[in-house]
């Protein structure tokens, strides 16, 4: 150090050191500013999703309330007739609500057993090679666009139902229920499989050691132990089914009837979608009110799901 100082001359070295000090100081300052800016940027990014939820909630409520106020809450929710384009329009959405509820229930009744058993297959029965075949299939099933399901429902399922039950039109609630059942399968399978895999092996080992067969163990020990996770999968599936629009629109026939298995029906989602392109005035506002009802359904489902997941996390 001294030798360097001697060679370069002291004053120059000092000024060099000072300059270095100054630039270092400046870099540090810049770094601090960058740091602060990036911090703010990341906070903003984090807040975007909150803002989005607030925006969606706000808009749906703001757009949905006027028509309800005009029509009357009870008449809107429990009116049995939807005749939005009649000379004396009637806006009762009970048919849509009941169709959505029954349709979703039907999809769950069909989809859950198949999905759960497939999950059992994936988690406990399948040898590794088969697992590598079936798991991607489930993934793929969840990636297929809903319009493609709708197209298949329209071109294959509806005509089949029509022939099978000698109906006038195959576009009916049953077709929609079947399409929905297929569409919620991947959700139920993947969530249930995760839940089944999370069951501690000791449970099953104990059961097997006591002489239970493999299947008895799975159905009497593993599934009950994984029930909260499986329930979460079912609730998630319910959310998917109640919110699905396009596939249902293509197969359900789209007439505002009260629900019936072989009747042409309209769900909450399709009620919004089918008239939105040409509606105006009170009719349009009523469509937003339907969206509000749908939103409340979805939020309720989300709330149930969240409490369930929290309970599971605590357990």
């Amino acid at each position, binding site marked *: 150090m001294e030798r360097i100082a001697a060679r370069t001359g002291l004053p120059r070295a000092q000024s060099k050191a000072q300059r270095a000090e100054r630039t270092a100081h400046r870099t540090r300052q810049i*770094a601090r500013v960058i740091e602060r800016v*990036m911090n703010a*940027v*990341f906070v*903003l*990014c*984090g*807040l*975007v*999703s*909150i803002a*989005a*939820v607030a925006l*969606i909630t706000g808009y*749906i409520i703001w*757009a949905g309330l006027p028509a309800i106020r005009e029509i009357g809450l009870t008449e809107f929710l429990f009116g049995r007739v939807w005749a939005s384009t009649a000379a004396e329009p009637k806006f009762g959405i009970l048919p849509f609500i009941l169709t959505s509820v029954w349709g979703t229930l039907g999809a769950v009744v069909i989809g859950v057993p*198949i999905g759960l*058993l*497939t999950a059992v*297959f994936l988690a406990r*029965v*399948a040898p590794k090679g*088969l697992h590598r075949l079936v798991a*991607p*299939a489930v*993934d*793929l*099933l969840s*990636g*297929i*666009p*809903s*319009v*493609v399901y*709708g*197209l*298949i429902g329209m*071109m294959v399922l509806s005509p089949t139902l029509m022939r099978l039950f000698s109906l006038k039109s195959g576009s009916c609630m049953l077709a929609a229920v079947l399409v929905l059942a297929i569409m919620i*399968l991947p959700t139920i399978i993947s969530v249930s499989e995760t839940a089944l895999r999370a069951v501690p092996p000791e449970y099953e080992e104990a059961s097997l050691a006591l002489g239970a*067969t493999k*299947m*008895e163990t799975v*159905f009497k020990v593993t599934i009950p132990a994984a029930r909260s996770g499986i329930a979460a999968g079912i609730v998630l599936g319910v*959310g998917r089914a*109640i919110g*699905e*629009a*396009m596939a249902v629109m293509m197969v359900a026939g789209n007439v505002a009837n009260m629900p019936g298995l072989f009747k042409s029906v309209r769900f909450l*989602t399709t009620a*919004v*979608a089918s008239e*939105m*392109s040409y509606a105006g005035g009170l009719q349009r506002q009523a469509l937003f009110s339907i*969206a509000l009802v*749908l939103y409340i359904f*979805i*939020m309720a489902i*989300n709330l149930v*799901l*969240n409490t369930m997941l929290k309970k599971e996390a605590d357990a």
Partner: protein
Amino acid sequence: MNYRTRRTICDKGLYVLVCLCAALVVGLLVGLIGYIFYKGLPHITWELLSTAPSVLRGMIGILPNLLNTLYIIGFTLLIALPVGVGAAIYLNEYAKNRRLIAVVEFAAETLSGIPSILYGLVGMLFFCQMLGFQTSLLAGACTLTIMILPTIIRTTQESLKTVPASYREGALGLGASRWHMIRTIILPSSIDGIVTGCILSIGRIVGESAALLFTAGVGTVVAKSVIKAFTRAGGTLSVALYMYASERAEFDVAFAIAAILLLLVLLINAAAGLARKTLKR
């Protein structure tokens, strides 16, 4: 003896049932894909892919829809990717307030549970009418940006969580600032999650129709430039499939589009699998 046979039968029966269900699921998929390809692939012609529909010549082409799909994917990712990754970084690296983290995570979960038709409605009210974008590709892309945000946040966050704490400690211990650490250490080592999130988002955008029907519309004109394309209504492939099947009963075209969509989905799934495998540290 009787009891034991009953148990054996029960055991075997359940086993068969479980296998049958799995076979049913795989069968469904194979049947679905097979049928779509059988009906759709023969109708995919170069003419269909490379022209716009023309009433004069009585022709149907899906070039505009293909382009619109690409534009929307590009624009949506361009916005959603930085914001989503940023949100994930905030949640995982910056945030100290537990309650705020919980609120942001709850918001993201809520977003992922909202059905696409509601996104479509709000997009129509907010982007098309309030901000004056009209029914345009831009409005559709903005709507989808919000929609895919939770996907990107979740996959990135999952991947950030797997970055060992020692990496962070090492970087900070050497005197790196937080942002420097994130830029040089954290982001590169969580690239697999980011890429997976991108691929999943592309899949979601390609398949989306309900949210786009009222925001991006159903236009089928090839725009002269990219910027012009965004100011105009334009239908993506999925929306076009719906229009051709439901409104115009052009089922051959619908099946052709369905086949293209399925090919894309297959491609996207393969890419996601590949990304997960190759980019993992």
